């Protein structure tokens, strides 16, 4: 038990419990069911994408294009609805957009061999451009009511569709990463891709699969985003990729790949959501909230280094 608390997840759990306690003490409305759901709903699309981003980073890659794919998918969804398409048809097209975007990333990274940082940075800019071309300077809204209901109202009890999806993905991707052969390959490739290749693993296939998964899930998140807000613009989901990557890194996933757990990412998501929510209830502005999260991230990177350094010094002395 003490050993478990010494791990990264153990530390995160303590921080999370402290956040909960502070929130409950200072903001009486914090513990209401509605607030708990709101707290997830406000960032639901980001945290859904963070789950798949965790796999990508574990694999020692990065996908900066997620937010632009979300934006593009949201815009395409809204555009098609405005053109009189049904929700189902529009969703299928959006999935197609995600699949295509993912395949472009996959081919350029896994087959051609260009670093994912460059490929997905280019796609981040490119897809954002497409979104802006489609909607110009206006916004697209007027969705059928059932779609906004699905985006905002409870589906199972008070839980909206997007939250149900989040928890299904959390469990599904957690099992995929930690219990399946595919997940093991992701970790090994993230640790050392050459060792993986010399062990007969198909490195490019695993990488390609991850990039396709990342874009498809981003496209779904984009549709959820459109449905929740009821209207989209060319800059929808702008800059989300950085919040998403922050959640993953704070969760203890190594930016160099190979290390991390889905539990860590989940706890990090809980901490960030609760911190933001608590600060909001205390009328602390969004800018300050962002600053606090930034400090948290720096500390999370700094702390393990300090601990290692202290241990090394003790060994030397």
């Amino acid at each position, binding site marked *: 038990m003490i050993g478990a608390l010494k791990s990264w997840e153990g530390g995160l759990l303590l921080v999370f419990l402290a956040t909960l306690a502070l929130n409950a003490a200072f903001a009486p409305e914090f513990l209401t069911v509605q607030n708990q759901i709101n707290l997830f709903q406000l960032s639901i699309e980001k945290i859904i994408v963070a789950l798949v981003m965790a796999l990508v980073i574990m694999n020692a890659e990065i996908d900066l294009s997620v937010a632009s794919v979300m934006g593009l998918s949201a815009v395409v969804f809204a555009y098609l609805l405005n053109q009189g398409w049904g929700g189902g048809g529009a969703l299928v097209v959006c999935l197609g957009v995600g699949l295509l975007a993912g395949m472009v990333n996959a081919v350029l990274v896994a087959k051609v061999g260009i670093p994912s940082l460059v490929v997905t940075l280019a796609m981040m800019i490119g897809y954002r451009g497409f979104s802006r071309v489609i909607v110009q300077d206006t916004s697209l809204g007027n969705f059928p009511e059932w779609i906004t209901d699905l985006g905002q109202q409870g589906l199972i009890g008070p839980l909206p569709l997007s939250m149900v999806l989040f928890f299904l993905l959390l469990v599904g991707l957690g099992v995929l990463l930690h*219990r399946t*052969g595919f997940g093991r390959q992701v970790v090994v490739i993230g640790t*050392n891709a050459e060792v993986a290749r010399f062990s007969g693993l198909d490195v490019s296939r695993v990488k390609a699969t991850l990039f396709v998964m990342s874009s498809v899930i981003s496209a779904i998140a984009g549709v959820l985003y459109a449905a929740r807000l009821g209207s989209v613009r060319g800059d929808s989901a702008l800059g989300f990729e950085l919040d998403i990557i922050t959640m993953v890194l704070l969760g203890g996933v190594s930016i160099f790949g190979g290390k991390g757990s889905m539990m860590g990412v989940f706890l990090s998501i809980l901490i960030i959501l609760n911190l933001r929510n608590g600060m909001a209830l205390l009328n602390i502005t969004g800018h300050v909230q962002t600053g606090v999260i930034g400090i948290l991230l720096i500390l999370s990177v700094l702390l393990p280094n300090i601990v290692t350094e202290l241990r090394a010094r003790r060994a*030397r002395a």
Partner: protein
Amino acid sequence: MTSAVLELRSVAKSFAATAALRDMSLAIEPGEVHAIVGENGAGKSTLIKIMTGVYRPDAGEILVEGRAVTLRSTQDAQAEGIAAIYQEPMVFPDLNVAENIFISNRASGAFLNWRAMFADADRIVAQLGVSLDVRRAASGLTLAEQQTVEIARALSLKVKVLIMDEPTASLSAHEVERLLSIARALKAQGVAVIYISHRLDEIFRIADRVTVIRDGQHISTRPIGEVTEEGMVREMVGRAIDSFAVKTEANAVGDVALSVQGLGRAGVFSGVSFDLAKGEVLCLAGLVGARRTDVGLALFGIAPATEGRLYLHGAEVRITTPRQAMDLGIAYVSEDRRKLGLAMTLPIFANISLASLRKLLGAFGLIDRKTEAAMAEDYRRQLDIRAPDMRIEVGKLSGGNQQKVMLAKWLETKPGVLIFDEPTRGIDVGAKAEVHGIIRRLASEGVAIIVISSDLPEVMALADRVLVMREGRQAGLLDISEASQERVIAMAAGTGATEAA
């Protein structure tokens, strides 16, 4: 012992509960080559780190020329005239040789006096008795030349004691000669050289005195004239070892498992032909750069062959990916554990199951974790992998145990043809004997084995036949009864000996 340039008195050092060094006393005389030998884990690295100020001893003292000193950092050690060079030299590729030599003691002042610097560098390199253009960029230097630069750097710092840690581990035969002559040149200038190597033949050629350490303790220090190889090995391992018995007759072998005809890869190697029978051990010998590893990589599909034919159990096959090679029952145990062999930060069990993960997958691609753990335990017993728990990171094991984990990974694929690339590089005498034992056992079980090795005594101890390569071509194929170290070297270097069938 007042003449000693560096002396350790009753030095001890522990990490957590394990004592790495116990009551270690050692005196190094000026101008001597002092060899330190011991198995991996005997405490050699800790000893070096204490002498170079990386660690501080828990007890005991360090004296430099009779003065007690405290070494807090490598800079402190350098100021006292103690420096070390390692297996993998550190040079800055974008600087030229002279800049690399003077990297840590550039003349002060805003402007570099290039002419003076080149002249000084030339003088230092000449002192080492080697020729090296100090104006060229360091980027194209061979490993051996980079080492020369490091030694020159140490010399520029007025070094009194130079520690060489496994300096010849990755050098070819003539580069080793050059290094040994550099060590002699240093000695002639009054520098004490501490020479650490697994290669006992080098020690007999260069050392004045030999210190054996075992389990963190000083066992003996003797003038080289009073030491025999058997005696030294016995002291190192605390028991006798028969690993270096030379094979004189080939084992009885079975049907041909792998037949290679005119194998080649454009621009890399060509014309390699041999038949490998079940239960046979074929050693690939040759100088560094003879492209032996490339033959292994071609057979394993990493860098596929572009010419020639391959037959496995009589049927022609083409191998273009490792997966295909593995499906055909071919395994390749890489020479580079760290970069190509093991996922160092992952647990032992995950490394063992890595190449046979498919066998462990159940419904939905879930890994059968019980079977996986049992598999690891099985190999722990079979290969005597010394680890408290198969869930610890493989990087925390000693080199010999890491090698066994890598072996386990490939044995689990149940290969019919097993290619070992430098199977005992950088592991100690005891583990080496164990690895040789495993290779012999596999051969007796009918596995066809290829061993790529630069270690000639190893070749002589393992091979049924020796395939000698020179500059990407097959220079000859010898039966063990007609092979001798001299003949193999002559063939590999292209002097004398005519080609055999």
